């Protein structure tokens, strides 16, 4: 049975993610690492209506029966925990960010908060984009250098020391993407106000 305090964190973050429009009813997943185990949302559970039974505990270093009920993307979460020092992983489908990921290899913030927090969000491309070995390796490798990355056409993966950290990066990313889109709608030239901004591409 999942620890009460931990469940509360999952519940609040899940609700906030759905309410912010960052995922559809049953989409996305999130997990934390405790000792040598992963606690992850089960396949088919709804972010907005999580109950303690919606969480599955499974081993980090080996496979066990937990993977029958765990999210389809458990393999990606596991690879992330094995390759980075993440203690929490959030994956969802932020719409503006997905739209941008379809036409560029990296998302570079033009707003102040986004530049400050994220600097650059790389976009990785994977052919078989749902729970494959290739996806796990590509995503985990990219997260060795960045806190949040986009998978082209699919969604974002973010890491943190707590669920709240990982969630903050998602929320910040979608704000970045919304601002980029709105600027495109305006169709007016950008007035650069940040020093050294050309270096963000090299981040």
């Amino acid at each position, binding site marked *: 049975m999942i*620890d009460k*305090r*931990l469940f509360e964190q999952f519940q609040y973050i899940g609700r906030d993610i759905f309410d912010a429009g960052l995922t559809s009813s049953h989409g996305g997943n999130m997990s*934390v*690492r*405790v*000792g*040598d*185990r992963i606690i992850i949302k089960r396949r088919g559970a709804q972010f907005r209506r999580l109950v303690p039974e919606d969480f599955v505990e499974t081993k980090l*270093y080996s496979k066990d029966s937990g993977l029958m009920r765990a999210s389809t993307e458990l393999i990606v979460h596991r690879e992330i925990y094995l*390759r*980075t*020092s993440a*203690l929490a992983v959030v994956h969802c489908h932020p719409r503006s960010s997905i739209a941008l990921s379809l036409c560029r290899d990296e998302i570079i913030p033009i707003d102040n908060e986004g530049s400050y927090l994220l600097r650059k969000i790389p976009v990785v491309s994977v052919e078989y984009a749902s729970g494959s070995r290739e996806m796990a390796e590509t995503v985990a490798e990219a*997260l*060795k*250098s*960045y*806190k949040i990355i986009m998978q082209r056409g699919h969604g974002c993966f973010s890491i943190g*020391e*707590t669920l*709240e*950290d990982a969630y903050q990066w998602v929320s910040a990313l979608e704000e970045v993407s919304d601002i980029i889109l709105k600027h495109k709608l305006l169709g007016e030239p950008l007035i650069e106000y940040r*020093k*050294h901004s050309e*270096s963000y591409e*090299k*981040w």
Partner: protein
Amino acid sequence: MEGWTGKILDIDLSSRTIVEKSLDMEMGRLYLGGRGLGARLLWDLVGPQVDPLSPENVLIFATGPLTASGVQTSNRFSVSTKSPLTGTVMDANSGGWWGMQFKRCGYDALIVRGKAEKATLIEITPEGTALKDAANLWGKGVFATTAALGQNNNKRNVLCIGPAGENLSRLAAIMNDRERALARGGPGAVMGSKNLKAIVVEGSQKNRPADRENFKFMLYETGKLIKASPLTSQALPEFGTAVVMNVVNEIGALPTRNFQQSQFENADKISGESLADSILVKNQACWACPISCTRISRTKKGEGEGPEYETAWSFGAMCGVDDLEAIFEANMACNDNGLDTISVGSTIGCAMELAERGLVDTELRFGRADLLVETVHDIALRRGLGAEMADGSYRFAEKYGAPELSMSAKKLEMPAYDPRAMQGQGLLFATSNRGGCHMRGNMLGPEVLALPRLIDRFAYQTKAGIVANHQNTSAVVDSLVLCKFTNLAVSVEFFARLLSAVSGMDFKSDDLMKVGERTWNIERLYNLREGFSKTDDTLPNRLLEEPIAEGPSQGHTVHLAPMLEEYYQFRGWDENGVPTLKKKTELSLDFI
């Protein structure tokens, strides 16, 4: 020079030979410098059969690839050795200017072996390295020695021991730039056992970055972050580290009178606020540091650096003393004698409790501010009861039949946080490789200050991962070598990009976290080889069995066993806390 000079200076004091060796760049890439490199070299050089105070022990002074590069706080360095206090691998870390200057001499590290026949000093200048007679300095205090050898902050820097190191006190520190300290674990005694009084450096080389453009950008970004954080731009410069005294007291985590209570009724009198209102003259910065947290204080007895939070606590609440002037003067006495203020204050507090229980015959009692300075001198000179206190609280309390009253872990005196009020801190103290230490991943941030986020300090499940990550991060900072206060504003992903810009090599954030984890594991393996085991990952009985009696943390003890189990699992160690072959292979430690 792009990060590394590629050269290590190796001096054997017995044979009086001075050799330049190459740094194995693979080792450089895996351990960086500072603490990591020191631990790796120590593994090869000092085995279990070596007595820490014998000529076979070594001192490894190490800088890192960022030292002297101009990155904020890139002045720090460390010394690694086998500790005469704990018997573990040990590194002590210091700021000021010496580390920067040593790097400018063109070396990444200095290894000192053997034992000189007579009092000696090492002098490194652009003309070369020389061993000189130091007979006229032996017996002199740190202040006099530093002045006599021509200390000039930016040009010529003195590192030396005082009487405490000469008298082989296991609490002896190595001092640099007059009042900076490589303090914990007794490195001063190792230096004294080699008859080495001082190391003077004058350098001329520069640590220039490989990618100048990117380096300028990164420097600008980290500077912005440090300025933006109210901690590094306001709190620390204005109040110094002692600003923490009141908040730790407020939550009932301030160890008082040898950890008998967890709140000190006069905490405010020894806080950063009171310091600013009374004896503070100004603040001061180390080389290339915008934070400027050092206090310069003055009383009738003189002017000098300090007191820091830990010192204000160790001579303050720990001893039941609320007199800031007395604390400052005890601090000055420690600096001039070359002693670790945390261990000395804690040992005095221990003696005070033993005295009140009638176990030892001394005038020392809680609240006796008037006896502090004299006791410090007694310890440095091994005079009277000081001779017995000079080897730390554990050996002292054990001699008088009450080792459980030494508030230490692995015989290193614990610092100013009661772990019963901060569970994560308890796990940290119990598992730190050099003994009871907070500088290996201080949980003050997450458990009290909401840095980066607040976690419940009484919770003990799910703490292990955060503690381990913090330990790894602090090991990285200790290997780059930078000041941990930059880490309050700047995260590891910036350090990785800074290192890439300076060295011209590609380092990712995760590469750095692996360096931290590798360093932690090799230190662990070193201790295991020395005979330490799971049973040593523990805390004094008082913290495990006696609940705090009063205050906001009343009723709590440290729930170490479940935290330890989760911790071993998280680190990929077996149930006895031994790194598995799989983990060693992952970290390129399978040669062990």
